[in-house]
């Protein structure tokens, strides 16, 4: 019984001990996976770039076993796409060291479609309240415009951006370093389930692969590869985010960075990127103008779009005079009530009253008990 093309590829990417580089060599030599599968034993035995173990593994061809495994995987709701599938994203064909196959969980056809605009939002796992907030907000606004947010479902910026996107009713793609059937980190389980329903989980690794450190830089190239542009929200000086940025530059993608204050350690990396020529990210509207991707928004509800388009931070400025003073000294760094009292000279009781009012009106937000930041 013959194998389907999907099953040939499935066999091909799962040969034990054969990595991407060797697979590329095999494809170059034989032209297609079917040829590799059907080649004779002597041809394989004479290949110089293969070691004994690899040769043996390639020669083990149990078609029933392959069919069985493939079916079992499909039954778990995991799809497999490869370089020859119709659904394989064109964008990934253009990147160097393109993946041979991808495992997907979720609505991969709709989301990975090539003319759908995708933006990667990346940043460090250890982020500040500001970074978290900004990532969520950007993710939200992009999601509301029907733009797909691509990220890595990590703690910190990644997760926040994807949560924002999903909460706005958008679709998000998460590229994982482990198998798509494993939720890592475990505390993101809600997000994981949500993406599986309203987005897509993608991995280059076989289902069941445990998360190991070496796999994450590999997946970063897919994040930048899938996206049309990447936004770096927050990155320290030695953040792993730079791997994604390097890949993106290599792949010729536009890189945006959120500027930060010179005193913020978490923004050092972003500021350095800007110094090196990255675009400054100021607002989603400007970003989209910039990218001339308005056509990407065509599909969305006009009213919501207008709402976001018109939203300006300054309109939130409170009318009441004392509240205005409090507003003017608050920023994205959490500030204790005592400090607000000291800097404004307004009596403690009044400060507390104003803060509660402003919080109800959505102008400020309490990060930790008694510490306030501006709500952007």
């Amino acid at each position, binding site marked *: 019984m013959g194998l389907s093309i999907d099953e040939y590829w499935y066999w091909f990417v799962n040969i034990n001990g054969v990595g991407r580089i060797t697979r590329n060599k095999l494809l170059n030599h034989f032209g297609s996976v079917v040829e590799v599968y059907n080649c004779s034993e002597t041809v394989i035995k004479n290949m110089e770039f293969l070691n004994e173990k690899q040769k043996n593994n390639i020669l083990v061809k149990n078609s029933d076993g392959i069919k069985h495994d493939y079916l079992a995987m499909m039954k778990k709701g995991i799809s497999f796409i490869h370089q020859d599938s119709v659904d394989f994203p064109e964008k990934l064909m253009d990147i160097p060291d393109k993946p041979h196959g991808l495992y997907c969980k979720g609505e991969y056809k709709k989301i990975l479609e090539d003319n759908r605009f995708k933006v990667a939002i990346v940043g460090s796992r250890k982020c500040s309240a500001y970074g978290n907030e900004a990532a969520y907000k950007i993710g939200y606004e992009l999601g509301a415009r029907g733009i797909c947010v691509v990220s890595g479902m990590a703690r910190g910026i990644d997760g926040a951006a994807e949560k924002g996107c999903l909460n706005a009713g958008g679709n998000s793609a998460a590229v994982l370093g482990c198998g798509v059937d494993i939720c890592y980190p475990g505390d993101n389980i809600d997000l994981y389930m949500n993406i599986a329903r309203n987005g897509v989980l993608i991995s280059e690794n076989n289902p069941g692969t445990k998360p190991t450190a070496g796999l994450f830089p590999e997946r970063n190239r897919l994040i930048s590869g899938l996206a049309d542009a990447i936004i770096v929200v927050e990155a320290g000086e030695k953040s792993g985010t730079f791997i994604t940025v390097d890949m993106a530059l290599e792949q010729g993608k536009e890189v945006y960075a959120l500027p930060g204050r010179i005193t913020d350690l978490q923004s050092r990396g972003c500021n350095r990127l800007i110094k090196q020529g990255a675009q400054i990210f100021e607002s989603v509207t400007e970003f989209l103008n910039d990218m001339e991707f308005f056509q990407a928004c065509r599909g969305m509800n006009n009213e919501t779009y207008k709402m976001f388009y018109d939203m300006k931070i300054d309109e939130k400025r409170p009318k009441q005079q004392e509240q205005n003073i409090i507003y003017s000294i608050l920023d994205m760094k959490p500030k204790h*009530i005592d*400090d607000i*009292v000291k800097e404004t000279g307004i009596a403690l009781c009044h400060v507390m009253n104003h803060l*509660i009012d402003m919080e109800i009106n959505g102008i400020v937000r309490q990060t930790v008990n008694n*510490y306030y930041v501006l709500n952007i």
Partner: protein
Amino acid sequence: MFCKSYCAAVIGVDARIVQIEADVNDGMPIFQMVGYLNSEVREAKERVRSAIKNIGWGFPAKRVTVNISPADFKKEGTAYDLGIAVALLCSFGRIQCDKLDQILFAGELSLNGKVNSINGVLPIVLAAKERGFKYCIVPACNVNEGAIVSGIKTIGTDSLQETVDIIEKECFDEMAVPNEEWKSNYSACMSKDFSDISGQPMVKRAAMLAIAGGHNMLMIGPPGSGKTMIAERLPGIMPGLTMKESIEVSKIYSSSGKFTETKGFVYERPFRAPHHSISPAGLIGGGISPYPGEISYAHRGVLFMDELTEFKRDTVELLRTPLEKKYIEHTRNNVTIRYPSDFVLVVAMNPCPCGYYPDKSKCSCTPLQINRYLSKLSYPLLDRIDIVSQVQSVKYASINSQDKDIYTTSYIRERVNAMRSIQNKRFNNDRITLNSEMNLFHIKKYCVLDDECKNFMENVFEKLSLSVRGYNKILKVARTIADSEECDNITINHLKEAVIYRSFDRQIKEVM
């Protein structure tokens, strides 16, 4: 000959009058004691025999029986020695006195006839007064404890010989210690003033409200921000004890022999700060014959638990019922003892494992670590805390600041006193004294909200997602805030401030 004298058994913080019957008859020379006695009471036999011999009187070779009645509960402690000796001397015919039924004896004898100190003199004297005794003869070193009780004459005695002399000469009135006038006094912790703490206006205000309204308080802050300093200064701002409260507290200290620490009588509100290695029995009391724990020693005062997250979880959970009921009951096989434990709980903790969150320049904890740290807290306990205040680390500028801080100890105490008297007036007919003790009925009666406030509370619950459990806490704290401004009604500004003190709820809810 049959003779009897009176003594009292201390059970918990109260005393029960017992009578000591002595009977001397012909027969085998035996000295035996009956009446459900614990071993230390049975050992009194040897002490009494030696004491009587050593003050120069022989112990006749007759059949001697002593019974302590009522015989249906266990007698413990060494307070019976003196009463037994007097009853025996009487039945030997060595002393004659027709006033023995008006006198209560309590004291431990040593072999040479001296009288040693005992625990629980105050409850004993109070019980004697209640039963209509005229005199109370107690060890001289404990006589101060009884001096405060009026309506009964307390006499101190150093030895069995002196006791016999007093009885024979009937010079009771001459020997009685003069009654001490009860007066509240404020000498406590005056060396530590609130103005020593630089800045931190918010937590100082929170402390004032907590003490004034009897609200339990939680302080969260980085190391070195002054949480412990604030707690140490709390006794200074507490109002003086009333005489009734003072006696309640003194009874606890007296019955457990803690008076060596407080010299006679408790005039100041206690402040207890147990270390976090404390055992469950140390905290709430316990043992085979139950003794009081830190929560009872903190009765009418403050119990401060520093580094709350370091306390063993099951130890902290034990606080739940005493915080609600204001007493703790220890039940053992034959006795249930109730110790009062009406205290203000003040707890302190760090915001994260390293202690510096949300100052991200110092804190390196991940959100996961912080969540794990906060989830160590017990939610039921947090639910009993009305006021939560974040203490922030002290800035250099405020250390040397020359600004006069209005929050000095004397200022705060004045405010607290004023607020307490408002509460006393309000709760005159309600059997409670503090805002924190209000139940649903009182809240309905005294925390009336106008329409504006009702709208605000509705808004708060929707937008700030507060828990419904906190609703009544907010009203109680708002009541205290209104009292601080001497307002009859709660206004919207009071509610807003109270909401701020409750906002920890939200953070915790995200974690749990």
